[in-house]
């Protein structure tokens, strides 16, 4: 995935990281501003609710504390998603809401997904969210990383500690399920 820059912000993520290491704290602000929303969206879609702010903050703190370990094998945003995903799994494991490694079978809907409680949604949006809510957790993560964040299958596999092939299958199964729900 290519690095994303805001309009008027031509610095790449790598350049901002270098500037932050050189003592420019504003570079950190730019990186947070560039990626915080996407991380919050992924956290919300993965079932996090009231602690989204804290989750995103923890993700950034961990990421900046270990930036020397970031080797640039994936994009900075994908790396951030990976850290957030691990935080989510740790929290979900401790809460015993969704034990890691136990993947729900296809067609089993999750009832925990309702990331948009505070949003007054249109009827169309509500129907789409209902369709998403019926996906399995893995299908949902793959589908939303692809559709809302634009991640490649490779980046999704990195984030979810899976394979490109598995990500592709989950994506198409999710797409088929959503089409069927919306057509019904």
């Amino acid at each position, binding site marked *: 995935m290519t690095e994303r820059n805001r309009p008027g912000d031509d610095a790449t993520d790598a350049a901002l990281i270098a500037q932050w290491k050189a003592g420019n704290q504003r570079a950190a602000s730019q990186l*947070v501003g560039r990626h915080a929303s996407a*991380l919050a969206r992924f956290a919300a879609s993965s079932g996090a609710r009231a602690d989204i702010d804290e989750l995103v903050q923890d993700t950034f*703190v961990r990421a*900046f504390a270990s930036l020397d370990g970031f080797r640039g094998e994936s994009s900075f945003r994908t790396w951030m998603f990976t850290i957030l995903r691990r935080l989510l799994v740790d929290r979900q494991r401790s809460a015993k809401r969704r034990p890691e490694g136990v993947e729900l079978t296809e067609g089993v809907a999750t009832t925990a997904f309702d990331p*948009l409680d505070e949003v007054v949604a249109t009827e169309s949006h509500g129907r789409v969210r209902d369709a998403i809510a019926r996906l399995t957790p893995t299908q949902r993560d793959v589908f939303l990383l692809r*559709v809302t964040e*634009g991640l490649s299958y490779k980046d999704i596999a990195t984030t979810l500690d899976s394979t490109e092939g598995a990500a592709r299958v989950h994506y198409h199964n999710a797409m088929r399920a959503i089409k069927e729900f919306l057509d019904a």
Partner: protein
Amino acid sequence: MRDCENVTMREQLPELLHGQLSAEARVAVEEHVAGCADCSAELEVLRRVRAAVPAPRVNVDRIVASIPPYRGAPRAWAAVRSARVFGLPTLHVAAAALVILTAVGVLARLRAPHPTDAPTATAPPVARVAPPVTSQQAKGPVAAPVVTQLSLGEPLSDLSESDLRALAATVDDLEAAPSADIDAAEPSLIDIDTEGDT
């Protein structure tokens, strides 16, 4: 809604949605979508999903304030910890090598023969080095110590007195051969060079 059979085009719809395609690829996918009802419908689904899942608000300033300043390059130990060998963490590789070497050492020690297991009944015939004879040194050129395997010949004790004397005389007649004082030596300890060392 059906799935378009043109997988190549269909797979690029999310990239089209996010503006991640090259100019050339974008034109090609847009032209395909314009003529494909299935891809057009799927692209519309993607747009609806993206719109239906907005990002919650986050307090960027608070996040930035929580990020500590950079503390500098990692120390040597941290560098070792983060280094990799063949794509694996160095420490993991070192630990695995240590375990393997230890296992090999233990196996080698277990398989080595114990001193008490050494064979004792198959010792080869004893070869003795004849001690230098004093008269031999006095008589002339020193011959190398003569080795005789007594077990291969007849024991001297089986020879008669006359045979022994004849043998001693023969030896004395040999050049550079030590004289043998047959009377002064114990027959069982006399070593004879049957090959002759001239």
